């Protein structure tokens, strides 16, 4: 086990180097002079020279890359050109906002997806099965930003049930501690605010969670169908156990392994989808942070934002891989 984790960590090194090479290129491969691009067409020569100097753009690439990596290792993610503050000190609230959204989206996707998949397998070829699988198929084919816009229109603007934008009531903000607002509100024992925050989470979580939900439902169904055919299930059935017990106690344990793989993979996909969802719901997460940086040509933020998301993605994949060995002792590396 330990050896496997070590090997898995060693394999991360080339991946991390590659990642930094790509984010490094974002600034250095843009056609033309990066300082000129950042400052715009009308910038005067002194400003360009100053920026080149401060960004170290006059050094050879290899030296620049060396400086970039050594800064990163020391936790220096650069300085935002727009806010003029250190990215490493301003990025946490954005990450927390994205995490909170991702966690709720995943909870939604897992609860609905796994159960829909189980019931579909249980009542194979019933109308429920047919509808659930049709819905799942439509779910994976839908652009999530479109779903988000539709939700916003129907549930926020037409029906007025749920808020359309943001994480909380901006006139009545929460004093942040962890920047996970649900958690913060609960720490303050402020239940009305916790409720407001939860209401803000519903629409974006559903928009973000729909694709994973559909994929999880399909995976659970096929995996359950396979397990339900196995001998030990027949034995349990012969023993006289009820259908509910057979499914949730015996079959699910084995059927869930491939589903967990999918859940792990989808968590990463959510981080990408968060960019679109956050843009639409004005959710102040890291996806929106990067997206706005693109509009302002705030290259240090684009670089570090993308790097941070990719880093989180890699860590999630690592955790998922290690978890497999715990869940399924048959998997040996």
């Amino acid at each position: 086990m330990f050896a496997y984790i070590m090997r898995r960590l060693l394999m991360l090194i080339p991946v991390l180097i590659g990642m930094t090479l790509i984010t490094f290129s974002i600034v250095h491969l843009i056609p033309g002079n990066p300082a000129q691009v950042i400052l715009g067409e009308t910038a005067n020569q002194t400003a360009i020279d100053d920026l080149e100097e401060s960004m170290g753009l006059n050094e050879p690439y290899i030296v620049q890359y060396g400086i970039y990596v050594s800064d990163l290792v020391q936790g220096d993610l650069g300085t935002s050109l727009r806010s003029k503050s250190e990215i490493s000190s301003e990025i946490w609230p954005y990450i927390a906002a994205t995490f909170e959204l991702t966690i709720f989206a995943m909870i939604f996707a897992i609860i609905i997806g796994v159960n829909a998949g189980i019931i579909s397998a249980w009542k194979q070829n019933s109308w429920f099965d047919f509808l659930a699988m049709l819905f799942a198929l439509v779910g994976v084919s839908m652009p999530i930003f479109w779903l988000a816009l539709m939700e916003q229109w129907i549930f926020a603007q037409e029906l007025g049930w749920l808020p359309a934008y943001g994480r909380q009531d901006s006139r009545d903000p929460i004093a942040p501690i962890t920047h996970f607002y649900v958690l913060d509100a609960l720490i303050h024992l402020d239940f009305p605010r916790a409720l407001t925050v939860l209401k803000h989470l519903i629409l974006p979580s559903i928009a973000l969670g729909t694709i994973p939900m559909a994929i999880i439902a399909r995976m659970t169904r096929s995996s359950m169908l396979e397990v339900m055919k196995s001998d030990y299930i027949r034995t349990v059935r012969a023993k006289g156990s009820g259908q509910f017990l057979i499914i949730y106690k015996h079959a699910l344990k084995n059927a869930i392994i491939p589903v967990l793989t999918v859940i792990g993979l989808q968590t990463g996909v959510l981080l990408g989808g968060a960019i679109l969802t956050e843009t639409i719901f004005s959710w102040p997460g890291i996806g929106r942070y990067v997206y706005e940086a693109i509009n302002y040509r705030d290259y240090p933020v684009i670089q570090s934002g993308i790097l941070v998301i990719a880093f989180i993605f890699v860590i999630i994949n690592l955790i998922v891989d290690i978890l497999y060995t715990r869940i399924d002792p048959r998997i040996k590396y």
Partner: protein
Amino acid sequence: MEIKEKDKQSEQQLPNPAKAGQQFDTDEIEAISPWKDTLKQLRKNRFAIAGLVIIVFFIILGILAPLVTSYTYDEQSLVDRLLPPSAEHWLGTDHLGRDIFTRIAYGARVSLQVGFFAVTGALVFGTLLGIIAGYFGRWVDMVISRIFDILLAFPSILLAIAIVAILGASLQNALIAIAVINIPIFGRLVRSKVISLREEEYIMAAKAQGMKNGRIIFRHILPNSVAPIIVQATLGFGTAILEAAALGFLGLGVQPPTPEWGQMLADSRDFIQIAPWTLIIPGVSIMLVVLGFNLIGDGLRDALDPKMKN
């Protein structure tokens, strides 16, 4: 040479033994090639047919765009802005008074083109890299696999955004970005298939005859890896269109006035309450096309999977 030919034949018959158990005489088995068999399976799949109908509809719509409408996609008429669907404007007009049906038809061209070129690019480079990695193994495999790992270390849409941020926002660059993020998907698929094929006896026989690597790869390995590639390409078509729409929505794809479905959604955002059709129609179009490719892809996978034949 004869040995090779025989091997090839027996290989082609492999998907059929399931049938041999039933009462077919041998002549009939010879007559069914695996591709014809797949086609037969596919024709029985109503979902796949539905998918095909959807895709063919949009392809025809895209090709005939100038003929099916009397408007041009960039013709603005501010008097006619945000009109609901009518006999004059079948799907209504947008905030600049442009005919939405016309823009959807021309948008179909853009989306299908992006899908086609991005998937082709990803398929060609991914397959090539996958074959090289799987066939030669050792350090070549090491290097190529790590490159795949790195590309897969980014959530795909994020990598696409990064690439467009480097190259600049345009249709061509969006296309390149989508192709690049899909390369490792094809690459890994082909690599694992090649590794399993490499140990087959007929490949060893080909090597023993002194056949050159290139010939082994293109005549023997590639034809036998085709099935999963086709399935992935079909499903990838849908994903590529979704990714292109996402880039378009973020303003990182096609630049105006060329109509692109994702961008149409972004343009109409502010008018959802007064003119919901401006948002519903492009969204449904994207969904239908992607659904179409997913249905065909699922159907193909089932048809090509020998386990599903019963």
